[in-house]
């Protein structure tokens, strides 16, 4: 029993190690994704191209503009353009917003209780427009407090941002990437490895032997479990040392939940390999059925709570939904086992269901 299993595992490792191209993809892809998400993909906005039209030309107006320019949020690209060019500037995307201070700005500040300044925002990207508006409102609020010490507000919100005080988006992405990478490696590689044997015809040969299907299944999945672990460890280590993503919770709990999640991915890959007969179809099926829902609907980027109710139900059967809560909880918040029981149970339930189904459906004939 163990001899057969061991030799299948050994053979599978040979396949992996001798296919240099695939091996490089397996190892380089997660690193690339991490660098991409860590450095390039960010939800924050910086260096927003801005045109300032100062019609007031007073110390007050210059003071306000300086307050704006001294942050890294806004980048002044032009100033004092005539009004008939505004449309043109936004159309050509020379600037994302135009700030207009009217000629009576300084005067109005002294006389009127309220002074209006105009901000034109290009909202073809609504997310960006939102950011621009928020940034400007914060900066003007600070300016108001500084210049008008008599200003009294009924109450002030004093936020304390926990678990990710600097609101770094890679704190959010690194755990998410681990979820995506584990799923991709475990589901995709397993299904391809099994379907390849069917496609090439070696499955027909090894089925006519004393091998038990369980031995084939376990023998083929263990190597990919190891690879999945290695890859996620790589991403976690890089995330920890390069991007300083904290690992506050228990490493044992992390390993345990990763194992549970890997098993889920493997059993899904197994299921795909049973219902498909060619590597290409298997690859497509895995990408469609795991990657898309994982990226779009699990909370990897978009929060589950803000999805339509129907999609929220769908997200419950996506393993990554639960794993994301678990891994973000463990890494950033130091969640303990007791905090994560519902998520871990869901994951175990999905894994148990998939593995039972795929073992029962595994064909030992060619019908």
């Amino acid at each position: 029993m163990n001899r057969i299993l061991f030799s299948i595992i050994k053979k599978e490792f040979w396949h992996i190690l001798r296919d240099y191209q695939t091996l490089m993809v397996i190892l380089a892809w997660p690193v690339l994704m991490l660098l991409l998400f860590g450095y390039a993909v960010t939800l924050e906005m910086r260096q927003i191209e801005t045109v300032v039209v100062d019609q007031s030309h007073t110390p007050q107006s210059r003071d306000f503009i300086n307050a704006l320019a001294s942050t890294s949020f806004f980048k002044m690209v032009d100033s004092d353009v005539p009004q008939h060019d505004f449309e043109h500037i936004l159309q050509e995307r020379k600037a994302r917003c135009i700030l207009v201070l009217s000629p009576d700005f300084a005067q109005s500040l002294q006389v009127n209780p309220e002074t209006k300044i105009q901000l034109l925002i290009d909202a073809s990207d609504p997310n960006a427009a939102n950011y621009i508006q928020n940034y400007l409102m914060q900066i003007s609020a600070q300016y108001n407090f500084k210049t008008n010490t008599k200003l009294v507000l009924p109450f002030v919100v004093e936020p304390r941002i926990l678990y990710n005080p600097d609101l770094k988006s890679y704190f959010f992405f690194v755990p998410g990437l681990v979820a995506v990478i584990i799923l991709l490696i475990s589901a995709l590689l397993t299904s391809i490895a099994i379907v390849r044997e069917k496609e090439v015809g070696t499955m027909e040969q090894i089925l006519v032997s004393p091998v038990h299907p369980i031995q084939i299944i376990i023998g083929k999945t263990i190597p990919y479990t190891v690879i999945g672990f290695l890859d996620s460890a790589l991403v976690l280590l890089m995330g920890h040392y390069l991007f300083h993503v904290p690992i506050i919770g228990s490493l044992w709990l992390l390993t345990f939940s990763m194992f549970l999640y890997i098993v889920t991915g493997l059993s899904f890959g197994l299921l795909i390999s049973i219902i498909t007969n060619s590597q290409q179809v298997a690859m497509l099926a895995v990408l469609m059925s795991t990657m898309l829902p994982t990226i779009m609907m699990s909370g990897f980027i978009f929060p589950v709570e803000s999805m339509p109710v129907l999609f929220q139900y769908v997200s419950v059967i996506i393993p990554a939904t639960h794993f994301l809560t678990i891994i973000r909880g463990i890494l950033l918040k130091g969640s303990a086992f007791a905090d994560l029981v519902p998520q871990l149970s869901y994951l175990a339930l999905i894994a148990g269901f998939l593995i039972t189904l795929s073992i029962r459906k595994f064909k030992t004939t060619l019908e």
Partner: protein
Amino acid sequence: MTAIMNQPIRVENLYKTYGDVNAVKKVSFSVNEGEIFGLIGPDGAGKTTIIRILVSLLRADSGRISFKGRDVAGNTAFVRANIGYMPQRFSLYPDLTVDENLNFFGDLFRIPKAIQIQRKERLFEFSKLAPFKKRRTGQLSGGMKQKLALSCMLMHEPQVIILDEPTFGVDPISREEFWCILKSLAQNGTTVFVTTAYMDEARLCDRVGLIFEGDVLAIDTPDKLLKSFTGSLYRVGSASPHTAYEKLQNNPMFVSVDLFGDGIHITGDQALTVNKIKNEMERLALSYSAVSKIHPEMEDLFLSLMKK
């Protein structure tokens, strides 16, 4: 009772359909211990289907197939552990070396390491693959691949081996060599069940079953089969055999006319003579180089049985 227990393969009224296609129609035959039994027929005759049912990879619709006296359908584990099976497609791992493939199949059948080493040595003697031990299987020639596949299958020394078109696409010299290996295996008591689409390989078998469109047309030793050929057979050499074939095809003078690589083969009743054929050719203004009476080959027999 022991005779039945020892009967390596017994097929009774085997029937199998794929949708609307009757792949195997009421096929019955048996293979005796230590013989080379060849199932011969063109592509699509049902050879692979029969073999896959025999090695328990497919289920028959009806009929019974037994391996060493045991019903295959009910004894899958016994069949798979004791039969040697070489599928039609090359089914070893191209990225593994010769040695690794052999070891892998030795391990699959739980052969102890020490015995594996002995067996590999013996298998290398006939396969002559020893110098290529460390070579990746994907880089072997077609003939070498087939010999390696055979060797892998022999790692557990099965008493009955099943080979599905093992010489398909292999060069003539390697084919000859491969058959020599099968011969020596049979001489040492191994039962060999082999399929082929090459009619000329029939003479290398102890007994032959001719199969066409899921029907077994005849089963016997190659000699007896050839003797069963009724009528007389003539070969007509021609520079344009296609034209001659088309013109003669439905001629009532002949029982059948077939196009062969070396010309046209004409079958007739006992009254047919070389001169009669020559006269007919001249009457139809067909050119010919020679007409001679010949002994039937397996292909002639197959074609005549096929048309019945």
